[in-house]
């Protein structure tokens, strides 16, 4: 049994190094291009902005990577962001210590994730459908709880999470990096992570090998939503506002980062580093295009085109290795 599982670890979960090098090269190329187009881009002040502005996307995308590795998807991350931000904010307004409020916010995210996981694992409904439903429910609860009005005005220590600095690095970037590291360790080196990848690769084989499929699924969705809650807290801290419309569209941005990072939706493998690079590429594009004064609607066009190009490159790479992107 142990040998079979060990074999699993080796076979599953090592994404092609070349692919990640390719992403790194593309990111570097973008940075060089923007630096040539504007002297304002390569300054530390601006690069620090890129990290600051990508932090939330990175955190949510890492959570998404874990779920995708388990052959799932989570469309409710936006609603989770909004609701957990509101929970944290509401508790701080009720005079809770910000640290406790933060933990409560993360716990609320975990609870929402557990709901998603139970829908998928115990009710057997496809994750796309479960999380589409819960996306609406969480967002609606957020709107009802706040009557659509934002909650604002939080203690300085809390706000430092979103807009403060630790030395030269923005705090939110540090949180994002720490979260990425944590996610990478979980998916690659813990039994739970291995189980998740096994479930993603071949649920039936995993079941026969003794992997607790249902528990693993619930666990991975719980983890993903906890990441989303962390993202919601960072946004709340940065804007000094918790509102029900926070995180709209974040699920697509997160999925874009995951796909660009090379993690396959067929499940079984995960590259947190790839997702990190994907999110940084998108963040660099948004920042660089603003620096060279391209209007926002063109930015969306460029990001869309780059995304398609990355997907194409990934597909060509896989095909050259005789793998199909959506093998069943």
């Amino acid at each position, binding site marked *: 049994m142990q040998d079979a599982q060990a074999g699993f670890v080796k076979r599953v979960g090592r994404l092609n190094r070349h692919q990640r090098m390719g992403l790194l090269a593309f990111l570097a190329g973008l940075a060089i291009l923007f630096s040539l187009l504007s002297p304002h881009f390569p300054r530390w002040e601006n690069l620090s902005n890129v990290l600051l502005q990508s932090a939330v996307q990175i955190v949510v995308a890492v959570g998404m990577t874990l779920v995708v590795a388990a052959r799932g998807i989570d469309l409710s991350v936006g609603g989770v962001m909004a609701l957990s931000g509101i929970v944290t904010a509401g508790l701080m307004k009720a005079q809770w210590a910000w640290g406790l409020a933060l933990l409560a916010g993360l716990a609320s995210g975990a609870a929402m994730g557990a709901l998603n996981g139970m829908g998928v694992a115990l009710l057997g409904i496809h994750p796309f459908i479960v999380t589409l439903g819960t996306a609406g429910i969480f967002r609606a609860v957020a709107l009802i709880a706040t009557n*659509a009005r934002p909650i604002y005005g939080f203690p300085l220590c809390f706000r430092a999470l*979103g807009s403060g600095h630790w030395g030269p690095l923005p705090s939110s970037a540090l949180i994002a990096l720490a979260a990425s590291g944590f996610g990478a360790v979980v998916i690659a080196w813990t039994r739970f992570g291995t189980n998740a990848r096994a479930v993603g690769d071949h649920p039936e084989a995993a079941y026969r090998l003794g992997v607790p499929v249902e528990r693993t699924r619930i666990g991975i969705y719980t983890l993903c939503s906890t990441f989303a809650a962390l993202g919601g807290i960072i946004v709340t801290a940065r804007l000094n*506002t918790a509102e029900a419309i*926070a995180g709209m569209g974040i699920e697509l941005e997160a999925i874009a980062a995951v796909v660009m990072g090379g993690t396959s939706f067929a499940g079984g493998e995960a590259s947190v580093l790839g997702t990190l690079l994907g999110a940084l590429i998108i963040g660099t594009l948004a920042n660089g295009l603003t620096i060279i004064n391209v209007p926002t609607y063109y930015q969306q066009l460029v990001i869309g085109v780059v995304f398609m190009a990355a997907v194409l490159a990934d597909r060509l790479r896989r095909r050259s290795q005789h793998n199909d992107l959506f093998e069943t």
Partner: protein
Amino acid sequence: MLRYEWLSGLILLLVFWTLSLVPGRASAEPLTPWEKARAETFAKLGEVPKPDAPTKIGTVLVTLSNPFWVSMKEGYENAAREFGVTIDVQAAPQENSVANQLNILENMVAKDYDALCAHTITAQNLIPAFVKAARKGIPVVSDNRVDLPAAREAGADPITLGLVDFYGQGRLGAEYIARALSEQGGGKVAIIEGLPGAPQSEARTRGAKDAFAAFPDVEMVSSQPGNWDRAKAFSVTQNLIQAHPDLAGIQCANDIMALAAVEAIEAAGKSGRIMVVGIDLIPQGKEAIREGRLAGSVAFSPFVIGETVARAAIAAAQGLKIPGDLEVVSVLATKDNIDQLADWK
């Protein structure tokens, strides 16, 4: 001899035609309301000298998907031409893209503009960027929607121009509806707000509520958010008509929503029975007023606001003081005066 008469007639015609091409006013034509409002507003700001050194100004608007802001952008571009400065104008993708707008302004702060202009979506969302600008010594000109105490507490010091009396606008529009209904014995009215929590939405709603409250025979049955969004305002109006079949008037917090309300009313077959008043006087609104579909719109020129804030920024970049209580003039546009407002932008 006839030939010479034709010739002299032709020459006379040519002479008159050439004279008519001479630019400038041959006689004292009265200023249009727009030109008057513009001149009054600039007079309040005072003389702004043209800068000697090349000056770069950065501006972040709300969104270019609303013609109101497009008009403001044109105002900025006009000021840029007049004063010979460079003004980069950016906007967020949507009316509620708070994080995006903050990102844009932060990126602009990193570009070392001589001054920045910011039209904030909510009272708080741009404060982190204001703080960064303050640290670099870049003057920021914004309007009174910004939560100034919170900004100062965080370490920022934006110059907030009074610019627009939002409360007064809500009041002006609602009073027009209330007065008209009161003359006919009263009736039921409703309010469609903007984005909840956004300062101009809150102020306009308060103004409208106060105006309606002042007329005892006018009953306000509902006040709902429309989020500055066409689709949302359309469905809200449909629901209002269903719930209150004898609804007689709706005050909307902007023209986009007012026009959607008008569409919903027409779709329900109730055109002409519900008075709708908007705010902003976008080009589509002007058309609708002329056609009699929209009862009125509170007009304040986004073009002039753009020019005014640009001028204030140019002054600030040169280190000059700017009067903080500067307000642009608002005018209620209705069928009666819409012809004089043809050039309002």
